[in-house]
């Protein structure tokens, strides 16, 4: 096999692998992306219920209610609008009223959110960046 033939074989093999990988990546991107919304975004952008999304904000003071077993309900607020959230399971150490929270799950048709994951994604100031950004947009950001 000459140098040129070898180069062609190599490049074709590489192209095939790349094409397969690109297909995989694009399919995966479509299927597994999860959008983040603040409570105000959900109302203003008319987010359709049933799709998997993340919501974030502050846990509204006084809204945390413990139900049977490990189920809890609370409200997530961006100091403008709030959404009721229900969740069953263990919560991260940093989950507390008045602190930032990001929850992943499904919006139901009645305007409340059923979360299956509560994320401990805080930076060293215990505030998720998306939540801080959302609060900044609302003009109610108060770093403390």
């Amino acid at each position: 096999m000459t140098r040129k033939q070898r180069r062609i074989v190599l490049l074709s093999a590489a192209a095939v692998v790349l094409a397969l990988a690109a297909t995989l990546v694009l399919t995966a991107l479509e299927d597994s992306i999860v959008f983040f919304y603040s409570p105000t975004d959900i109302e203003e952008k008319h987010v359709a219920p049933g799709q998997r999304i993340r919501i974030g904000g502050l846990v509204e003071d006084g809204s945390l209610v413990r139900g049977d077993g490990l189920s809890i309900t609370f409200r997530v607020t961006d100091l403008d609008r709030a959404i009721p959230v229900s969740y069953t399971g263990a919560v991260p150490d940093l989950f507390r009223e008045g602190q930032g929270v990001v929850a992943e799950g499904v919006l139901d048709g009645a305007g409340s959110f059923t979360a299956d994951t509560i994320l401990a994604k805080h930076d060293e100031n215990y505030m998720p960046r998306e939540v801080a950004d959302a609060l900044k947009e609302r003009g109610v950001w108060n770093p403390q």
Partner: protein
Amino acid sequence: MITEIGHFALLLALALAVIQSTLPLVGAARGDPALMRTAIPAARGQLVFIAAAFAALTYAYVTSDFSVENVFENSHSAKPMLYKVAGVWGNHEGSMLLWVLILALFGAAVATFGANLAETLRARVLAVQGMIGVAFLLFIIATSNPFVRLDPAPADGSDLNPLLQDPGLAFHPPFLYLGYVGFSMAFAFAVAALIEGRVDAAWARWVRPWTLAAWMFLTVGIALGSWWAYYELGWGGWWFWDPVENASFMPWLAGTALIHSALVVERRDALKVWTILLAIIAFSLSLVGTFLVRSGVLTSVHAFAVDPARGVFILAILAVFVGGALVLYAWRAPALRSGGLFAPVSREGALVVNNLLLTVACAAVFIGTLYPLLLEALTGAKISVGAPFFDMTFAPIMVPLLFVMPFGPFLAWKRGDLVGTAQRLLLALAIAVFGTIAARAAAGADGPLLAPLGIGLGLWLVAGAVCEILWRARAFTAPAGETLRRLSSMPRAGWGAMLAHAGIGIVVLGITGVTAWKSEKVVQMQPGEAEDIAGFTVTFAGVAPRRGPNYSETVAGFEIHRAGEVIDAFESSKRLYDVQRMTTTEAGIITFYWGDLYVAIGDESDEGLTVRLWFNPLVPLIWFGAITMALGGLLSLSDRRLRIGAPRRARPAAPADAGAPA
């Protein structure tokens, strides 16, 4: 006073770095040996001064000098000494100082041990190292100075983030940086080679050991981080595809491709263009990782909350070095003459496949990590790309690579015998198939249907690696004496490669075990209650308070029974740290031969204490496999043939020797 000395030392190091990046380059272009040799004292001097600065900062931490702002923000007098020292690099400014220290260390190593490199090459390599040093020293002095003083000095500090007060995490950054920054060597060599217009076997013989060392440290660093996340974060997971984890994994993938590609350059003078590109990519990914973690564009418990000014600076550094290197590559790479021809089925061919698949896998991780940032910058939409994406893309790319991996070492250079190789691997295949069937039988109906194939894949890798050593020693075809003789005279690099490849197999076994057959229970328990999991019965004994050096704890004790007998006990606790008022959960873990029993407590309510129980089969194999890989790298490094950097004793020329055999 010492702090000011440290600060001044940094400025001197910057001055030396400027000299190191300019004079040798001019010297190499002009062929002026004196100018070229200025690089050596410059590089050594830079190391001395940065080491002095690092020592000054460490002194400030150890003596709890809270007039230094960095110490105030990250330390406390009651903190244990280990974490006072680890606190030096547990924050942004200090860790950048560690970064440049390791950069200077590698530069001084080339300066000191590179006597048998071509003068111009060494000068150019040190110049590029110097340029990187200038960029980062400027970054530190301008935006991230650890020596800023506070006036008046506070009485005590703010303590280090409790999550970082942990032995695993104390050692994680140094190992990680030895890896990341070690790739700067390969980068410097690649850029120097592009400037020279020549890549040859001598170049590869120099690049490979240093890249292998960097790769080895990075492997340990990533394993430490994963192990820490497992036992500290209290969620039983060991890898979350968190952007910061990916930031360390991508250079590892590129680095693995690089060490294999450099092998082809060394032995066969081929694949030069690809090797240079991989060297540039590996370090570029290290820089991208640095940017991601420190710029504030990411949300992660791992990310430093830094201001955007720093992010812009790092982005500029990225643009200059990566952009510059790639432009140089596009311009000069065609001038590199390529060497030996090889058939598609050959060791070179296998290494090409290896390169291709690793690079593509790295690209997939890259896209998954950066796509959210890109989309947010373009459209403002905030998305997250999590484990499902990576499972869908990374795994299907890696599995074919893992399958062909055992074939590679058997194939000869230039033209390999695929049928013969397959025959030699039949034993490994038999072990793999047997293991798959055994796993299916043992698991019964638990777990995904394809999970036993993961066990088979892991066994295939381990057995394949061992088979290769056995074949080289003519194990079943020659008398035992000869086999033993061959085994004992096998070069260490051969054993090293076997361990490294087997190590991956062990990791695959661990990943399969914990992913497919993990059991989890989240319950509320009162003292005296018991819960069954994976054949064990765990009884909650009760809760008691306890006091630590800088925290107070609530400790929950548990007893473990199996078949009616008490076999062990462990505890999980919640700690409240005095200064930062932050709560962490400490998990209890007992490692049995075949898996980990893991407990973590949650909140207390009227109905009892929330208790999370896991049984993670085979999970210790993940880190055991990583250590095996690193050991393989270490073994290979100790091979005499690779010790090209060691000084050679000059041999006196003797005319009588001319006719004697070498």
